[in-house]
């Protein structure tokens, strides 16, 4: 048996060495998230405005348009849970922080987490969704995190350079996706999520409340942000869900004396500022970041 085990080990050794090297390369790959972690971990960080949220603000807020030092950590399918936990984790480093822009979208109070992306939060930020324990990506990021295909792709490309956490992925307008049908499909998928996770609403409202209290105790002002959607998208939103969201945000604003930069009702916007029905493209991001900047400056002077 000893010979068998020895031969097995000898057989798998070259593969293990190669795989170990591959895994190391994947772990060391500098992507947008690792660049964000680096920036947030910097002691006495110069960040004055921190942008949170999912792909809506991830695509739609260009930090370069702000007068204050702004950093965008919004990420596709990033839930409020991770927005809050990431900010809390690095608050001690963010000594210059004045404002936190909390993206409040149609589904924000009902979106829990995206299982396929949980490993990224665990690996890079060291944060697990609701403190879930062991994850297979802890063993191998290439096998159980990114998957082999993506990992292999990472070997063959230059790391994406983010500017203050932002990389504004969408330059164009997908005109074929700017239709009433696509908008309805998109809203339907959100409505399903809202129905499925309706019990999460109270959890998130409480979590937000505690988060706001903590930020205010450090003289940081939370500001709610809702970016515009295409007309088709806004028209497709379920009015009762939208009204409940508006009422929830308004209650928090009233309770803590906060501001909501709400652009969802901006109408007559040109197609050219959208990527698809609910995401701005780079042109839209510049336009609305300038608007947010003005509003923030007004708030700062106030």
């Amino acid at each position, binding site marked *: *048996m000893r*010979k*068998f*085990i020895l*031969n*097995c080990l000898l*057989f798998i050794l070259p*593969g293990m060495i190669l795989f170990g090297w591959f895994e190391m390369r994947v772990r060391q790959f500098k992507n947008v998230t690792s660049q964000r972690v680096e920036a947030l971990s910097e002691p006495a960080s110069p960040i004055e405005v921190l942008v949170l949220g999912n792909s809506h603000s991830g695509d739609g807020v260009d930090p370069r348009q702000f007068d204050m030092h702004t950093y965008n950590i919004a990420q596709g399918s990033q839930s409020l849970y991770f927005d809050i936990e990431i900010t809390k984790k690095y608050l001690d480093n963010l000594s210059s922080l004045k404002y936190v822009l909390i993206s409040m979208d149609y589904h924000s109070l009902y979106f829990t987490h995206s299982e396929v992306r949980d490993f990224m939060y665990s690996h890079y930020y060291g944060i697990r969704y609701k403190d879930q324990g062991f994850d*297979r990506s802890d*063993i191998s990021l290439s*096998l*159980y995190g990114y998957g*082999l295909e993506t990992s292999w792709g990472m070997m063959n490309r230059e790391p994406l350079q983010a500017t203050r956490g932002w990389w504004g992925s969408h330059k164009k307008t997908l005109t074929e996706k700017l239709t009433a049908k696509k908008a309805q499909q998109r809203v339907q998928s959100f409505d399903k999520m809202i129905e499925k996770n309706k019990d999460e609403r109270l959890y998130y409202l409480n979590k937000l409340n505690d988060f706001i209290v903590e930020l205010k105790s450090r003289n940081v002002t939370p500001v709610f942000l809702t970016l515009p959607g295409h007309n088709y998208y806004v028209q497709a939103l379920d009015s009762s869900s939208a009204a409940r969201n508006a009422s929830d945000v308004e209650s928090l604003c009233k309770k803590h004396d906060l501001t909501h930069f709400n652009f969802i009702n901006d109408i007559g916007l040109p197609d050219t500022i959208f990527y698809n029905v609910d995401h701005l493209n780079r042109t839209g991001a510049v336009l609305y970041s300038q608007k947010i900047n003005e509003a923030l400056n007004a708030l700062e002077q106030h």
Partner: protein
Amino acid sequence: MLFNSLDFALFLPLVFTLYWTLSRFGTRFQNSIIVVASYVFYGWWDWRFLTLILFSTVVDYSVGILMSKETKESRRKGLLWLSILVNLGLLGFFKYSNFFIENFISAFTVFGSSISISSLNIILPVGISFYTFQTLSYSIDIYRKKLEPTKDFVSFCAFVSFFPQLVAGPIERATNLLPQFYHKRTFNYESAVNGMRQILWGLVKKMVIADNAAVLANEIFNNSESLPGSALALGAIFFTFQIYGDFSGYSDIAIGTARLFGFNLMQNFAFPYFSRDISEFWRRWHISLSTWFRDYVYIPLGGSRGSSIQNVRNVFAIFLISGFWHGANWTFIFWGGLNALYFLPLLLAKRNRIHTNHVAEGRIFATFKEIGQIVFTFSLSVFAWIFFRAENLTHAFDFISGMFSPSLFSFPPILDKNDTLICLISIGVFIIIEWLGREGQFAIDNLLNKWPRVLRYAFYYALIIGIIMLAGEEQEFIYFQF
């Protein structure tokens, strides 16, 4: 625990090391390790169903002992029926309750009355069709006095729950497997290496062939109404390779794993798609189940002896039962019936045993006649698999009518995709390797023996890289649902 999972990749070396390092404590200790490992392996899915295995084990163990003490034939028969009723009762309840309830309701609806019975929310315990048949074979063989009942409960537990073949076979006969638990296993280097080789080939079949073919077959079967006949034909072919890669891959991993522990399980697949007629196909496909039905159903019914009418009855009985064994759906029963129709002409013409050797034995290439026979038999199988895969009979017939339409000769749109081409190329390479190794127990059994070690290792590495690079989306083994 899936064979193609990290859990199993950790579990297997751990159990292997424990088993052999502690084997000096004797046979009983080896068997105990197997029982514990098997229960952990099975409990990984749902530990509650371990009680079912244990119950089945206790019943058949007790029936075996009582039967051996009993001299009165009627009482021995009574005990056998107890075992049959318990095992088939469990199987019937968990697997077929809803089928009977739904058909009962449908039958009443046809006659104009409506009844209200809710179908039951029953989870099918993984592998129940396999281990119940295995324990049944034990009781029946004792009744037939072909086997002495065991008094060693641990050995019997190990026989029933032996983890390599517990959830999807091969369905072992007590006469073959149980005696292997009576003797201390000693480590055999050659056998273990061969086992590893068979596991590797099983993983290729499952992860490269079956899982990739599954994605395409699913896409085609799920959108069959909007696809041309040529794409549907391709879908049926993909499913043909999916089910073979999936199930024979599982069997290879099971047999290979058993070898690592010093056990020999029966061959379950013998290159069935190279069969020259349908009777040869059935001697090569899911051999452990086919021979089970042959020995415990077909022969007791009279086999091929008796009148032509009896022959027809027996053939239909065995194929319909086999279809029903696969699942509680009319599609499986129809699939069984169709295979009976394929088989009957050969039986009635007494041409069902003319191809008992390997095709093109001792030669590399087959003759044109043999190629023609293989293609014809393969086409019959592909056609029958449509029923096996379809959601229901209507879906199957719609699929077939869509397939045999003028669009059968159009360019299948799915061929535009890279994934399809990669899958087809993988299947092509796979067929070549299977053809070259068709005289062994599995494709790479004897194929590599004469190769120098460097080449052999390079081939193994190529297979491993193939698995890593070409592995499809992880799918559960199809036969787990049966």
